[in-house]
């Protein structure tokens, strides 16, 4: 297993702790007087998303997590799973829907996703930051209101509910930020 010293810790590094993969999301160096220095880290569990705090003696070495990422295109969906394909190797991968959690609303065919593997097993599916989607259901817009300041709910082709400006109509295509589900603009 490849190891890393606390001195090399960086935000974004993926490490293995108690046999689980974590992402370093915070790293503070503290040193009391002439005493023992410590690294106080915040770690996000790569599967559950839970954030924990962990303090290390500076200079301690810990394992890097065996994490790989690959871009795969969504082929089709099955009742309990989703099938992706690697554009280069044509390898296919079936991902159970249980791994998707609330990301199921961002699944679109023919779109490229980042699949994260831990020890060779897929652990999460990351959608592109921005997606263009059709509106399939929303209340009729008010003519004349083009300020965009007042919002209403709208349902997209994937079933996601997005708050859009009043002037957006059914059948229109919009751009959505998948990180927070917010409306970015009309396409």
């Amino acid at each position, binding site marked *: 297993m490849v190891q890393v010293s606390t001195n090399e810790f960086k935000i974004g590094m993926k490490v293995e702790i108690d046999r689980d993969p974590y992402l370093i999301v915070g790293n503070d160096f503290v040193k*009391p*007087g*002439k005493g023992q*220095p410590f690294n*106080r880290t915040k770690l996000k569990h790569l599967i559950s998303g839970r954030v924990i705090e962990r*303090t290390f003696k500076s200079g301690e070495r810990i394992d890097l997590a065996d994490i790989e990422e690959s871009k795969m295109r969504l082929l089709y969906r099955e009742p309990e799973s989703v099938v992706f394909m690697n554009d280069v190797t044509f390898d296919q991968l079936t991902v159970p829907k249980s791994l998707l959690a609330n990301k199921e609303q961002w699944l679109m065919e023919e779109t490229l996703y980042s699949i994260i593997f831990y020890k060779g097993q897929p652990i999460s599916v990351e959608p592109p930051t921005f997606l263009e989607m059709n509106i399939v259901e929303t209340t009729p817009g008010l003519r004349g209101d083009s300020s965009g300041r007042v919002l209403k709910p709208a349902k997209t082709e994937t079933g996601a509910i997005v708050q859009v400006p009043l002037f957006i109509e059914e059948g229109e295509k919009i751009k959505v930020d998948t990180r927070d589900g917010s409306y970015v603009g009309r396409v």
Partner: protein
Amino acid sequence: MTAPTSDASNILEKRAQFFEKVRRFFKNRSVLEVDCPALCASPSIDAHIDVMEVLLIDGQRAYLHPSPEYGMKRLLCAYGKDIYQMSHVFRDNENGPLHKPEFTLVEWYRCNMPFSFFIEETLNFIRLFLGKQKAIILTYREALMRYARIDPFHASPQELYSSMQEGLSPEAALWDKETLLQLLFSIHVEPHLKELTVVIDYPKEQAALSRVSMKEGIEVAERFEVYYKGIELANGYHELADAKEQRARLCKENEKRIALGKSSFPLDEGFLHALEQGLPDCCGVAAGFDRLLMLHLGGARLEKGIGHAHGHGRGHEREELF
């Protein structure tokens, strides 16, 4: 060459102003400025301070001082005068918003001055930067009882571990009491020391180079630290003068270094010999100039007190590494 941003040039001007203020502070008190060399043949020995090694062209090894302490003490032994030094010091493996591998330290020694007077002088020095501030004095024990509800002198390592268990690995249960106390202090006490605070009466295990005396039946170090906004600003001692005890402590630090998987160093015999000739009864303190300036300028990262002129001798693009 690009013109410095107004912020960076402001920092430069403030640094220069405060260099002057510091010199005036000591001149008014008849403390002599000295400049002990930064490049030393023998390093100082601290378990947790990593000295930078320099390889000279003739193959000899030398070390950049992590503080001018040994050199200044040799001068004290030889001349017995009050002295101060303002210098760049070097400590490897120290990187963070409040730590840089190179920083500016103001260190001074006063002979035959009572410890409490010396603490007051240190506070007045700090007030040069922070303005008029009342100071609170807390013993190490009071600070831990107040903020962590733990008595540092009587708690077992197990109790210390349990009080922080959530953020620690199971292996931390095997850390020694000193390590656990230092962690507890830095995460549960330091952040609360927002007002100007002096912490005194450290456990004797944390004496470093200070004298140890009995207080209420417990051996405590005659050491103090000054905090403001949760940041450590100065570390002072009633200096240990006993050459034998000094030698024993250096050997102990070397043993700790070996236990930590670090290299041990030969003792600085010149320094020990000077102590044998007699170090005057004196107090000494080292204060972080860059942190003080940072606080004066209202910053929370050391860059605010250092400015771009001190990019650790590296280009801008690498600065964010530190």
